[in-house]
Each structure stands twice: as structure tokens, then as C-alpha cells.
């Protein structure tokens, strides 16, 4: 009554014993085991509990299709839920736990759910839990949410860690001529033929070893496998094992997941846990194999019920025979080799073949080994709990099935037919074609550079698979222009006796719980209920019953569900439909998909050449798009508020320096540069003199404001444009689009020189003196030589080239100086002592904001993509004498309507009060809830001595003269009476910057 680790055979290394923990229990296995084979060898039959009814679940397969043996691996931050025990290589020190059960999977109190199973039919939750039972009285969602809490706790499978994942992952890119998916006989043959034709071939295999199903054959057959592997090595074919091709995408691109260290006991800290490959192949051969499916019969989910080929794998590959007394149930020829191998190893074996008769050659060999065969027989229901102890059979009769006999067994092995793995083809939205004679979906033809080979193409015999692989390899070679021997691909099939389609064994008048999707506890009755209720399209059935939506995506259960629905509808399977498999083929950790782009590297950080210099001088940084920029430079005892007020005050009183490198900078060169600028800016640029700069506004095509900035004329055909930090890339791309697609007659080159030039603004009454001290020739910045909006190219001391414009964002006398980036720290080492000597300061974004709000200068907070140039108070910059980008659509009636919200300044009525940006401006009533306007920015104005703001309000300042306005901010529970004023709140005539 138990599984046995055989003393010999298999592909495990019995000299290398591995200790591991299962649910706190110390067990051991061997190198080469999977967790599943090791658990079976230790007679651990119940390894999981099902989703809904908490029925005991054991190992049902030996591969990725596993719907039963899902466990949790590791603990703490390394905890990994829902791991398939059947694909997890065993390593020394592995820790695994049962999940979805309490106190443990062997004794789970959740099993009480099974008692109420009759009420938990598919979709029952759509019909209740809305209100107070029994008749769902009540309103709203409150009651549902109480039920939902309980439901959520019961649902879910494993428990994920809440701690940050401590592992790292990476991406990798690869290119090849031919990508072969699957390292079974067909894949190996395809790779070899393609490589022999001189192609660059990559072969990926999800298993730890190459060989595919031949690994489940007696080890004596290994010669062919090893020869094929060494041939690939000689040919220089790239082979990745532990690697799953999880998705096929456009352009011949495949996504692969390589599990680099998941099978290692103590991985190197420098190796990633997993690697996500993006492979671009010119041709792809899918040799992804086929999966054996079961049949629906009573208690077919019990531990001890598994596929025949799984049991064969456990014996031939892992040296574990799952029982002494084995019953095999089949509807096809594929089980007889395994049956005779079991018998030869000493087990008592009985095959129940659902067919009336088979070709004698099929059973001869097995029977000679002592296998008993009963025809017209199938399991009706399994008995025993964990594992099964026997079964009651059903006998085929004219009307279907009739109750048969009771038999004893240690394990019930089932083969309901084979399903080619067409999932990757399905990712390409190629629908597969039903083949009634083979009872499976076969891959359909496609125009894409894809070939199917081996059992993925419905070829059942190993020799045929090899030939099928050779044919696919040759086809790939020929498609890529190489000569290769023409090999004719074998036709699908290969069984001596046709399969008999058996999906469910049901005896009239009897009912047992028969599972279609064991992981989600979807039963045959659920499918029939979906039919009764009209959820008959395959997608409705799937969604209503949740069939095929578990972690195996219905790899084996879907066909049974389709067959049952077809039967209920009295139609054929293809008329019900096929399911579309979505990537990934097997689930992929998000960590692998993100690679190294996480945490601090989620997005690349952009820093200015002054970054370190700023930090060294006390900067606190803030983010601005991808940039880090100085926010404020706190001195001892200061917080942000004290610091920025001091900085802004210093700028108005003496001088301040601020890093403005992050502004976008574009070199605009060529004979038509002036024409380009004149077309994209709203204001005239045709007559800007060399050595002058001009502030400009750009609109979008739809007439709303896109960006602002200054453009400097350095030469006849040579301009230097600055954009806002936020829109630098967007402006560059838009100008490139204009020149390359719309105005191709203009000779203009654009080059982003944002990275070439580091900039600092020197602002304040003492700004000129500071510059003079740093310049080789101080006279170039005198008021006469460099009047407001003048531009000069000159040198700092130390022979540092610099271009300087006298422009001002602060409203003070100010200059922007740009030097080649590598010289930026040297520039600051010249400017800063000069500024410091005059009581100057370094300032950051917060003070910059305070200064610009005082002046009513707009930034991204105001230019939010919804305002017109008039709204922003810049209407005078829109030329009436020329057409420019946006000028046509800016004239649409709503955009020119009277009473639109206009840029204004905002003062508190009580000057001791502050108010918040993001507040709405109202007339004191709620109105329609949208208010009369809104506040975009606030600051404590050092110059005015109270809080001020910028914002928009209907009609602008003039309409609100003498009227009450309220800055209302319900989310911060503040209402402040405010006065609406001109946005130019400080030095409205601009006298300070002209001197």
C-alpha cells in the first residue's frame, strides 16, 4: 500500500542524498529528484488542498500541467507560494509547506466546505450575498463587503510574503536564426538539422535535462538521447535548460524564463535568481510536446490518481514506483509500454481499456510481462482517501456505461488521451483544429515563420517525432535560404488502434463528484449547470465555472470541459469553440519581468553636472521628472520653510545662484532656422538680432499652450533654444516631426545639447558683480554691453567657455550662464565665493517658485495643457500679423469666449492666513461644485510679507475687483477669504531687472 523507492534505475544520483523539510518534517531524497518525486518516495500523498472544497490533493502529473501538488517553498522574505512540486528540482535544505489548509494539509478544518458542496455550485455567489438572507433585503454594498471579507480569506491559494523580495533578476537579449522550443526527441532533431545547415540555433528546455519524454523511458534507451545532445554541442548550438519559452510575440520574438538558481542550494550572490530572455528568431520550431489528460470519473481528484505517464516518469526517471498494485485506465495505446515496465519491476498491474478491442500487437508485450487487460472498462469512482485504495469500474454497454466491479489498488493511473501543447501558437492567435480521430486539437497552419514538430504536432511515436523534428529543422533551413535534406514529416497519429473518445465516465442515475479542473474544483455538474443557465459559449462557460482559470490555465482540463458542453448542446467540440491560451505558458515571477529595473533603478536617474557640488553645499534634492534638482539649501536649524524664504529674500537683496541645467536645450542651426522659429513661436522671431534672446510661447496644433522658453540668437543661422525641464523631450520631438514630416523644405538641423551645457542662474542686485569677478573679461556684462535680453559668448577665468544671457525668471537683475558640462563644478568654484562674499546664497526649486509666483510667471502648474495663451495672461505674445502652429485652432469659439478663467494673483484678506495650492476659488457658495477658479501655486512672499498665490478665476482679476472670493480646500478642511489681484504681485513694471 505504498510507493517504493526502487534500489536501482532512474536518473537520480543515489550517492548524493539531499535532506529537505516538508511541513516541518525532515525528509530526504536524491540529487535528480523533483520535490514531487521525493515526496512520493517518502509516501507523502496529501500535499495540498483544493481551492473551494479543501479536498485532499496529491501529485497528479510529473510536469507543468500539475493541478494538485501546489506547495509553498521557503519562508520569510523568500516565501514562494503556489510552486508546482512536480517541476521543482530538489536541493539540499529545501523547505516546503502545504498551503490553503489549517492546521495542515493532512488534517484541514476547511474540509467542512465539502459538506456544503451541494450549495456551492458554479456561480452561486452571483445569486446571493447581496443583502440580508434569505431574500437579500437591504441596499448598498455594505453587506456584500462583510461576506466578501470571509470569501477573500478562504480564496487565494498560497500566502505571499509581505516582505520585499530579497533576490535580484535580470533581462537578457538574444538573436538567432532558429529557436527550438523543447528539448525532446523532436526538438533535438530539429536543432541538429538546422545547425548542420549552418544556422545559428538556440534550443530551450524547461526541464533540467534534455530528452523530453525519453527521460521517462528506461535508461537503457539513453544512447540516442546522449548522441543527439553531444551532436548539438559539437555544432555550437546554444542550449538553455531550466528555461521556459513562456510566450510568443510579434516579429518572431519569444519570451523565455531561465531559472538560474532556483534549483541551487547555495547560489552565488552575483547570479540573478532568474533571467528573462527576449529572443528574436528568424524561425521558431515548436517542439513543445503533448500533455496526457485524465478522464472525469468519481473522486478522480484523490491522491493516488495520476496520469500513466507521470507514474512512468516517477519510476523510470526518479526510481519511485507509486504502488505495488497498479490499475491503469486508458482509451488509447500509449500506456502499454509503461504497464509492462511496471509489471517487470514487480508490481501487480491491471489495464482497464475503455475500448472494445485493440490490435493484439499493442497488448502482447505487456501481457507477456504479466499485465492483465480488461476491455470495455473504465473507472466509475475511486475509493479511499489518501491515497486511493481501490475503485469501482464501469463497463461499456450500448447506452454508455454501467456499474462494474470493485477492485483494489494503491494507485489509479489514467490516460484519457494526449493534448499537443499548442499554447504558444495560440499566443499568436492561431486557432487550433479539432481532430476527432486523434481526439485532440492539432496546430493549424500559419503564415508566420513557425514550424510544429513532434507530439506538439500530434505525432505519437518517438521515432516519428525524431523524423518530424528533422523535417521541421530542414523546413526552417530552407525557409532561411540554406540547403538541407528534404525530410517528409510524418502524419499525426501513430497508434495501432484508434483512440476512443472518453471524457467522462457517467453511469445513468448515479452521481459522483467528478472533476474537470481539480485546481479550481470545477466538476462535471458545474459545466452542465452552466449549460442549463445559458452560459454555453466556451468563454462564458470558462468564466462562469472558472474552468481553466487556475494556475495551469486548463492545460488538460479544458478539453474535457469542452467535450461536456458539446455533449450537453448536442454539438461537436469544434462548434463549442477552442479556448485562447494567453501568455505566459507557465506563470512567471514579476521579478524576472522587471529585471534590474526596480527600486532606485525603476527609472534611470538624471543628474546635473553640479549634482555632487550641490550636495556638497547642503542641497536637499527633489525630483523633477527624471531629474534630481536642488529643492533648498538649509542652513543649521532651518527647515524647508525657513530655508526658501531666506533664499528668496537673499536673491531680492543681494544675489543667489541656482542650478538650471535641467532646462531643455536645443541647438537650432541652418539657413531656415529663423523661419522655423517664426512658425512655431506665437510671437515674432523673424527680426531677433544676433546677440539677443527672446522669450517665446509655443502652442500645440489644437491652439492650447504647449511650452515656453527663451531662444538665443548666436549667429545668422545659429540659435540656442531653452525649453522647460518637463517638456524638453516633447518639444524636441515635435520640432523634429515638423521638419521631417511637414516642412521638409526647411534646412534646419536640431541637436539636443541639454547634456552639453550646464547652466546656472545668477540672480539679484549683485548678480553682475558676481559674474564680473568670475569672468576673464568683466566688461562683457556691463549694462551697456549686455542689456536686458542680451547674449554674449565669452570665457570664465581658467579659460572656461561660457555663454551668458541676461534674462530673469525671478524679476531681479539676472543672468543665465552656460558652460560645457565637465566645467560646471569649476564654474561654481568661481561664482560661489564671489556670491558668498556679497552675502549671497545658493537656492533651490522652492525659492525659485516663490520668486516666480511673486512675479506671476507661469510654469507647468499653470500651463497644464488646458489653457490658452490668453488664459495665461500672455495674449499679447500672440502675433496678429503671422500664422503659427496652433493659430488656426486657437480661434475656436469656446477658446475665445468671454469670461474664461484667467491667470490672477491671490492675497489672503487676513494677511496672517495661509492657503493651499489645489484649493478651489469660489464666490462663497457651493454652486455647481466646480467653483469659479482654482489655485495653482502658493508661497510665502518674502517681499510682501504674507502668503500669496497664483491661480485662475473666471473673468480674471478685473471681474473680481471688490467681490468676495474664498479659497476653499475641503480635502484639507480649510476655507480662507481671499482677494483677487493682478498676477504681477511684485515689481509689476519690471524695473528691478532692467537696471
Amino acid at each position, binding site marked *: 500500500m505504498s510507493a517504493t523507492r526502487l534500489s536501482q534505475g532512474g536518473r537520480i544520483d543515489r550517492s548524493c542524498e539531499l535532506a529537505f523539510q516538508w511541513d516541518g518534517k525532515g525528509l530526504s531524497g536524491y540529487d535528480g529528484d523533483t520535490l514531487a518525486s521525493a515526496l512520493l518516495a517518502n509516501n507523502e500523498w496529501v500535499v495540498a488542498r483544493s481551492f473551494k472544497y479543501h479536498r485532499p490533493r496529491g501529485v497528479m502529473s510529473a510536469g507543468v500541467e500539475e493541478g494538485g501538488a501546489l506547495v509553498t517553498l521557503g519562508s520569510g522574505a523568500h516565501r514562494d507560494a503556489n510552486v508546482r512540486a512536480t517541476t521543482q528540482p530538489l536541493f539540499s535544505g529545501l523547505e516546503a509547506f502545504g498551503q490553503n489548509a489549517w492546521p495542515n494539509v493532512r488534517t484541514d478544518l476547511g474540509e467542512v466546505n465539502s459538506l456544503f458542496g451541494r450549495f456551492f455550485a458554479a456561480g452561486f455567489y*452571483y445569486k446571493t450575498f447581496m443583502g440580508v438572507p434569505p*431574500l437579500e433585503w437591504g441596499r448598498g454594498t455594505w453587506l456584500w463587503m462583510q461576506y466578501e471579507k470571509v470569501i477573500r480569506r478562504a480564496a487565494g491559494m498560497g500566502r505571499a510574503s509581505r516582505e520585499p523580495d530579497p533576490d535580484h533578476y535580470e533581462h537578457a537579449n538574444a538573436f538567432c536564426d532558429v529557436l527550438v522550443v523543447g528539448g525532446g526527441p523532436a526538438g533535438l532533431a530539429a536543432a541538429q538539422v538546422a545547425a548542420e545547415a549552418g544556422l545559428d540555433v538556440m534550443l530551450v528546455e524547461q526541464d533540467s535535462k534534455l530528452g523530453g519524454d525519453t527521460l521517462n523511458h528506461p535508461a537503457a534507451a539513453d544512447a540516442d538521447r546522449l548522441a543527439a545532445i553531444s551532436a548539438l554541442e559539437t555544432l555550437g548550438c546554444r542550449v538553455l535548460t531550466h528555461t521556459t519559452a513562456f510566450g510568443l510575440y510579434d516579429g518572431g520574438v519569444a519570451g523565455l524564463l531561465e531559472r538560474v538558481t532556483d534549483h541551487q542550494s547555495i547560489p552565488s550572490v552575483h547570479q540573478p535568481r532568474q533571467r528573462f530572455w527576449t529572443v528574436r528568431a528568424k524561425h521558431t520550431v515548436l517542439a513543445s510536446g503533448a500533455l496526457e489528460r485524465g478522464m472525469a470519473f468519481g473522486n478522480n481528484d484523490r491522491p493516488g490518481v495520476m496520469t500513466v505517464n507521470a507514474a512512468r516518469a516517477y519510476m523510470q526517471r526518479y526510481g519511485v514506483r507509486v504502488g505495488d498494485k497498479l490499475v491503469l485506465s486508458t482509451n488509447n495505446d500509449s500506456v502499454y509500454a509503461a504497464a509492462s515496465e511496471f509489471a517487470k519491476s514487480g508490481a501487480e498491474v491491471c489495464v482497464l481499456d475503455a475500448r472494445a478491442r485493440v490490435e493484439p500487437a499493442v497488448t502482447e508485450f505487456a501481457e507477456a510481462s504479466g499485465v492483465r487487460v480488461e476491455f470495455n472498462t473504465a473507472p466509475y469512482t475511486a475509493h479511499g482517501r489518501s491515497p486511493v485504495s481501490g475503485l469501482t469500474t464501469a463497463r461499456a454497454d450500448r447506452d454508455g456505461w454501467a456499474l462494474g466491479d470493485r477492485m483494489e489498488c494503491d494507485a489509479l493511473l489514467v490516460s484519457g488521451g494526449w493534448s499537443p501543447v499548442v499554447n504558444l501558437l495560440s499566443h499568436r492567435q492561431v486557432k487550433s483544429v479539432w481532430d476527432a480521430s486523434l481526439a485532440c486539437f492539432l496546430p493549424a497552419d500559419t503564415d508566420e515563420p513557425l514550424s510544429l514538430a513532434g507530439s506538439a504536432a500530434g505525432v505519437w511515436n518517438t521515432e516519428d517525432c525524431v523524423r518530424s523534428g528533422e523535417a521541421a529543422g530542414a523546413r526552417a533551413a530552407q525557409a532561411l535560404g540554406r540547403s538541407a535534406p528534404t525530410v517528409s514529416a510524418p502524419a499525426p497519429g501513430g497508434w495501432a488502434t484508434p483512440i476512443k473518445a472518453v471524457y467522462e465516465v457517467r453511469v445513468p442515475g448515479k452521481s459522483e463528484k467528478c472533476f474537470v479542473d481539480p485546481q479550481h474544483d470545477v466538476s462535471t455538474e458545474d459545466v452542465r449547470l452552466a449549460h442549463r443557465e445559458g452560459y454555453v459559449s466556451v468563454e462564458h462557460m470558462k468564466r462562469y465555472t472558472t474552468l481553466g482559470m487556475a494556475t495551469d490555465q486548463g492545460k488538460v482540463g479544458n478539453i474535457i470541459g469542452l467535450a461536456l458542453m458539446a455533449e450537453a448542446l448536442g454539438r461537436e467540440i469544434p462548434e463549442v469553440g477552442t479556448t485562447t491560451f494567453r501568455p505566459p505558458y507557465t506563470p512567471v515571477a514579476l521579478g524576472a519581468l522587471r529585471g534590474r529595473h526596480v527600486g532606485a533603478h525603476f527609472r534611470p536617474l538624471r543628474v546635473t553636472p553640479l549634482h555632487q557640488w550641490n550636495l556638497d553645499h547642503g542641497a536637499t534634492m527633489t525630483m523633477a521628472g527624471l531629474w534630481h534638482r536642488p529643492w533648498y539649501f538649509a542652513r543649521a536649524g532651518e527647515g524647508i520653510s525657513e530655508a526658501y524664504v531666506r533664499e528668496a529674500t537673499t536673491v531680492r537683496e543681494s544675489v543667489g545662484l541656482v542650478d538650471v541645467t535641467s532646462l531643455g536645450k536645443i541647438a537650432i542651426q541652418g539657413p531656415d532656422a529663423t523661419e522655423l522659429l517664426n512658425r512655431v513661436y506665437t510671437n515674432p522671431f523673424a527680426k531677433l538680432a544676433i546677440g539677443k534672446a527672446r522669450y517665446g510661447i509655443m502652442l500645440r496644433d489644437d491652439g492650447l499652450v504647449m511650452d515656453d522658453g527663451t531662444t538665443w540668437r548666436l549667429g545668422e543661422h545659429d540659435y540656442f533654444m531653452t525649453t522647460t525641464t518637463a517638456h524638453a523631450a516633447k518639444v524636441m520631438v515635435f520640432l523634429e516631426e515638423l521638419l521631417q514630416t511637414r516642412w521638409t523644405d526647411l534646412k534646419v538641423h536640431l541637436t539636443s545639447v541639454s547634456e552639453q551645457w550646464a547652466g546656472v542662474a545668477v540672480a539679484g542686485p549683485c548678480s553682475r558683480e558676481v559674474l564680473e569677478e568670475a569672468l576673464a573679461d568683466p566688461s562683457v556684462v556691463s549694462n551697456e554691453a549686455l542689456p536686458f535680453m542680451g547674449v554674449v559668448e565669452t570665457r570664465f577665468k581658467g579659460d572656461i567657455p561660457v555663454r551668458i544671457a541676461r534674462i530673469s525668471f525671478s524679476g531681479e537683475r539676472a543672468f543665465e550662464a552656460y558652460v560645457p558640462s565637465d566645467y560646471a563644478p569649476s564654474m561654481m568654484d568661481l561664482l560661489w565665493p564671489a556670491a558668498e562674499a556679497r552675502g549671497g546664497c545658493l537656492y533651490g526649486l522652492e525659492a525659485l517658485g516663490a520668486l516666480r509666483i511673486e512675479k506671476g510667471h507661469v510654469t507647468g502648474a499653470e500651463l497644464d495643457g488646458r489653457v490658452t495663451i490668453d488664459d495665461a495672461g500672455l495674449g499679447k505674445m500672440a502675433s496678429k500679423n503671422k500664422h503659427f502652429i496652433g493659430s488656426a485652432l486657437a480661434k475656436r469659439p469656446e477658446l475665445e469666449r468671454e469670461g474664461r478663467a484667467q491667470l490672477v494673483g491671490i492675497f489672503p484678506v487676513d494677511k496672517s492666513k495661509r492657503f493651499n495650492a489645489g484649493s478651489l476659488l469660489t464666490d462663497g457658495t457651493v454652486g455647481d461644485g466646480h467653483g469659479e477658479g482654482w489655485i495653482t501655486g502658493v508661497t510665502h512672499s518674502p517681499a510682501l510679507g504674507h502668503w500669496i498665490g497664483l491661480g485662475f478665476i473666471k473673468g480674471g482679476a478685473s471681474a473680481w475687483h471688490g467681490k468676495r472670493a474664498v479659497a476653499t480646500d475641503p480635502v484639507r478642511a480649510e476655507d480662507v477669504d481671499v482677494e483677487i489681484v493682478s498676477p504681477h504681485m511684485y515689481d509689476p513694471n519690471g524695473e528691478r531687472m532692467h537696471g
Partner: protein
Amino acid sequence: MSSFECTDMTRYSAWSVFKNGLTGQRNWGRAWRDPEPKPQYDIVIVGGGLHGLATAYYLAKNHGQKRIAVLEKGWLGGGNAGRNTTIVRSNYFMPGNRAFYEHSLTLWEELSHELNYNVMFSQRAHISLLHSPAARDAAARRYNTMRLSGSDGELWDLPTLKAAVPHLNYAEDARFPIIGAAVQRRAGTARHDAVAWGYARAADQLGVDIIQNCEVTGVQRDGDNVSRLQTSRGDIAAGKVGFAVAGHTSRLWQMAGLGNLPIESHKLQAFVSEPLKPLLDQVVVFGVGGAHFYISQSDKGGMVFGGDLDWYKSYAQRGNLPIVQDVAEAATSILPCLGRVRLLRHWSGVMDMSMDGSAFICKTPLSNLYLNAGWNYGGFKASPASGWYFADLIANDRPDPVIAHFDLKRFERGVVIDERGAGPDPKLHG
């Protein structure tokens, strides 16, 4: 009630579930009939998605209309109804949008009772993470508008957020440190398929013919009037016709000979992880540094999430790898524990992306043709109000003031209802 078999099981309740449990679940009837199309209807709605079904339901329920058909080319709810991340919220602030989405949210709150179908609307709160004072102020404006117009909205500081969602990435060296959140507590998630089925069943009970596998292949005009629709199941004459076929609006529009629309079809991917025990109780939204990401956990335990469009026009319901990577980067950067959580499936839906990110519910150049389109990312949450106002428009042949600007002429007038301020580029309105 026409041909619908009315049994005492028609009404869903704990009682009916109990009784059916005792009788082997044999007495449930069809959720909706499978009628043959009739040659003529008063009103034909093209599109058996959420918007079409809701429209038919409210036409029958609110406006007493009879002889209504919904034509669906495939299976009900097979478009974006079945391919979204199920988020329901009303944090819109532009005039029109604000009232519209708020009305939708109030309809959601009673929808399970209204339809007698549990759509599992769970008001688990919608949390938009904030990363800078500027972002907080922009959110304040939006949420203040919500508050002032009778909705709910809050700004959370960091301690409040940490208490509610302790396992977000609060590290100071995070690329975009979190400073707080803007929160709508009444927002949440619903079971997307259930909404389609619930509307279908409720509409069917009011006599609406829901006809699946019925593709419109031609629109026959009689001057400025639609006279009949050619379908894969025969010609159908209609008094009034409503189009509600997200993703494919342009095709029908052109079948009707109406030229071009301010719409492009783009695809948006959605993602679900393996099922897990409760890990996240709220909807969390992240948008900074050019990234856009939203995540919640379904009742079944899957983490359901999504990000941006694939950035290029497409009618293909399949996604590509760059967005898969982007979304995984965002997911694990804000919830670092998700690194080991596995993606189970990713798929994509086809969106009507409009030029300003806002929808159309409007009359058309044809006197008896009405348009419901351009839902961008927002279609799921909008569906109850969309059906409500579209039904009202069709029944009364005039737009309710709330949808006054949901018309095709707004771009000629220069009306700006652009929630993102992104301008006339459909792909930017995610």
C-alpha cells in the same frame, strides 16, 4: 415577460440557492433567453457589451420602451467588458465628466440589488499615490472638486497611508518616494463578467431580445435615416439604432457612410497573477516618471493590474513585451513583495481612444442613429451611467445637460474636457 419561463427561481437569493442546493441545482433556468432575431425592432442597440446591455436595460426600465434588441457579434461581454481591471471610481473633475462619473458610482452602489445579480461591487477605496508637493496640489484640486460636488475624496498623509497599506515601498531611496495619497473610499472593484450577465438577465426579463453571434455587416440608409441593419443572421429593421461597440466604432461609422471620427483604436493590456491569500485590500494607483500603474486583488486572490497602452494603434487583442516589462517594473517598485509573485496571464483589449480622453454619447448626422463611444480607459466604471444617459438620449432624442459636451462637435467649438491635459493625441489619454 414574453417567452421567458418565469419560475420562483427567477429571483436570485440565499433562499433560492439553498433550495436549489437541495434539489441538485436542476431547477435554475437560463439567465437570459436565446431568441431568434425578429425582422423589426423599435430600437436596436449594436454591441452586447456593458454599455449596450445597460442601455437596453434602462430603455426598458426607465423609459418603458418595448421591442428592443441588442445585437452582439460574438458572445456577450466578450469585448472590453471581459478584459479590464474592474476598477470603479468617480475621481474625474472636468465639467460634465464629474457629474457623469458620480452618477455612475451611485448607480454602482445599488447595482446588485437593482439587477438582482451580485456584481460584487466592493467599495474598497481607490488610492492614488503622490510623490511630490506639486502632484499633491494637482490632486487636491481634483479631489476638492469632487468634494464640492457631493462626492467623497480625501488626501492622506504618509502615516495614514502607511497604516492602511503597510507594505508599499516607503524606502527613502525609492526612485520616487511616496509622500501621501489621494483617496476615494467609495471607489473599488466589481466582478466584470457579472455586470454583463446581470444587465443581460435583467434586460431579458424586461423583454429585451439579446441576440448573440449576430454581426452587423452593413448599415442601410434611407436618406438621413438608418432603415435597416444587415447582419449575419438576416436583415433587421429598426426605428432607432444605437452604436455601442467600443474599439470598433469607426468601422460601423464608416459602414453607415459617415466618414471619420475623433477616435483611434488602441490596445490596452491587463494582467493577473496567480491567486494568493489577501495581500492588498485597496485599489492602488501609481503615476510618476512617465509610468502609469494600477493594481488590486480580486476576490479569487489574483492580483489584477495594468499600465499604459501599447502606444501604437491596434485592433489585435494581444499585447507585447515592453509594456509587460514596464508594468512589472512598476508593480515591484511600489510593492516590493510582488517580486516573487507570478504573472498568470496577460491579454489585451481594444479601446476607443478619443482625441481628448473623454467619451461620446450623442446624436449623429443621421436622424435615428445615436452614438456611444470613445471610452478610452474608462469604459468599465462608466457603464451604468453610460447606459442610463444613452437610453435617455435615445428615448427622448435630446441630450441630458450632463452629457451636453459628450458630442462630436465639441472639437469644433473648442470645448476642453481633457482630464489629462494631454492634447489631441489618442495614445496619450490613458
